[in-house]
């Protein structure tokens, strides 16, 4: 339908994402309990709620503003490891969407690529280390391909969402090598990494917003 995500789409995307995380908070927390310290879901939801409050007064003039708000909120309030990483992740989307009104597929690919670079630079995790990177990297490849092949935005987002989902699912088979899950070893096998699952929700919400 659309080859851009306008502010309205972005609002749907962001709120859809927050809704999903809120619905899945217990599940996410449970995943972190299996592989870490069990605070992931609550941390994430509390930062997202704060973000939602901050968004209420925001002037939604640019495509990036909501991501900027989420970024500042996560960087300002979220403890743990994932908080600041997600803060920097959202930040890349905020930056790319800072001066325009809508996201093109190219911009989404660029934000994803920048986000991947930032998260790996800061967290030093490689793909395969059982972190959010395992969902980001496939999404990055999918969007890059979509841009190169000239497919339309919805196609690209569907591919990215699928790739992120598969990447997250695949973390069930991975031994943790970064963050708290690295202390847990084999005990985490069989359930996916909550950070990766959350990234998958992020792209799923993007795709739905474009439908």
């Amino acid at each position: 339908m659309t080859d851009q995500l306008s502010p309205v789409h972005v609002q749907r995307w962001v709120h859809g994402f927050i809704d999903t995380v809120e619905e899945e908070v217990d599940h996410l927390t449970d995943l972190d309990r299996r592989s870490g310290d069990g605070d992931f879901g609550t941390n994430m939801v509390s930062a997202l709620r704060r973000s939602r409050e901050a968004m209420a007064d925001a002037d939604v003039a640019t495509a990036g503003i909501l991501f900027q708000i989420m970024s500042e909120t996560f960087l300002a309030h979220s403890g743990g490891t994932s908080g600041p990483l997600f803060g920097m992740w959202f930040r890349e989307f905020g930056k790319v969407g800072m001066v325009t009104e809508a996201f093109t597929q190219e911009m989404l690919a660029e934000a994803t690529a920048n986000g991947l670079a930032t998260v790996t630079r800061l967290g030093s995790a490689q793909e395969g280390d059982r972190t959010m990177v395992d969902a980001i990297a496939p999404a990055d490849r999918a969007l890059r391909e979509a841009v190169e092949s000239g497919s339309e935005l919805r196609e690209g987002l569907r591919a990215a969402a699928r790739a992120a989902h598969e990447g997250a699912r695949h973390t069930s088979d991975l031994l943790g090598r970064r963050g708290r899950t690295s202390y847990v070893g084999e005990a985490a096998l069989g359930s996916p990494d909550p950070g990766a699952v959350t990234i998958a929700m992020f792209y799923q919400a993007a795709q739905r917003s474009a439908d």
Partner: protein
Amino acid sequence: MRRQFLNDPQDVVPEALEGFAAAWPHHVRLHGEPTYVVRARHSPDKVAVVSGGGSGHEPLHVGFVGTGMLDAAVPGAVFASPTAVQIRAASLATDTGRGVLHVVKNYTGDVLNFRIAGELLAEEGVSSEVVLVDDDLATDTGDGDGPGRRGTAAVLAVEKVCGAAAELGADLASLAALGRRVAAGGRTLSVALAAGAHPGESRPSFDLPADEVEFGVGIHGERARERRAFAPARELVPQMVSPLVEALELRRGEQVIAIVNGLGATSDLELYGVFGQVRGFLEGSGIDVARRLVGSYVTSLDMAGCSVTLVRADEEILRLWDAPVSTPALTW
């Protein structure tokens, strides 16, 4: 049963910070939203020295804000890193255009948030450098891939020395080099006789049998890798000092700064007793205890225990150590 003087455990840090700022009006100012503590008397034209980390280690770091040491301290919640936004704000508040030195204890959350803050600052044109303090010998695995040694009481020496050098006008690059040199020459070992309890919790974070000590304990209530037999100080202290001497490859005639640090609930009687033994051991090895500090400076809530830190010293480091300092927790 452990109890504390507090109201809502959630509020323990903000309430303590308010009390702290009110207690030291000539030394510090408290900023809220985001939370950080800065010097009451801003010093123009110097590199800002900023540190921070989880609360529960008081007087670290807020107690070291003042002339000759920190320009700002950024406290997180109990045992939790401050956020990048706090660190950025504290850095912007103290930067004079000459850049900001971040003194960071090596914990994943602290490292991550300070690194992020550095990137945010860079985008605003403020240069910063990180000095990573990783002195805890107990977590020295030799494994290059892991999180590395934790940061503990040697951070005190880095803050003091860098704070003095900054006051004297050193630039950011040389401060960073100096701080790294001090940190590289610092090692610590800590022993706990009883764990502390989180605000509002009645149980200590671990229980110890009567005949054992937690050897190589951290400052966040986590257990050590090792338990050893409880023994008189004259036997425990050499077990702490000897590995430090070895790790630092200290030779006869070398000078050190020795820090005997209480972890919260340890009496001065004990700390001074321990220091006497540390000194005896080092003098017996021909190592010169050129400077020393004994007290509870880097704590772990109300943990009963103490740490011994040795920092290799040279004339420059000693001169900066001796330079005047005026902060709530350290003044000379």
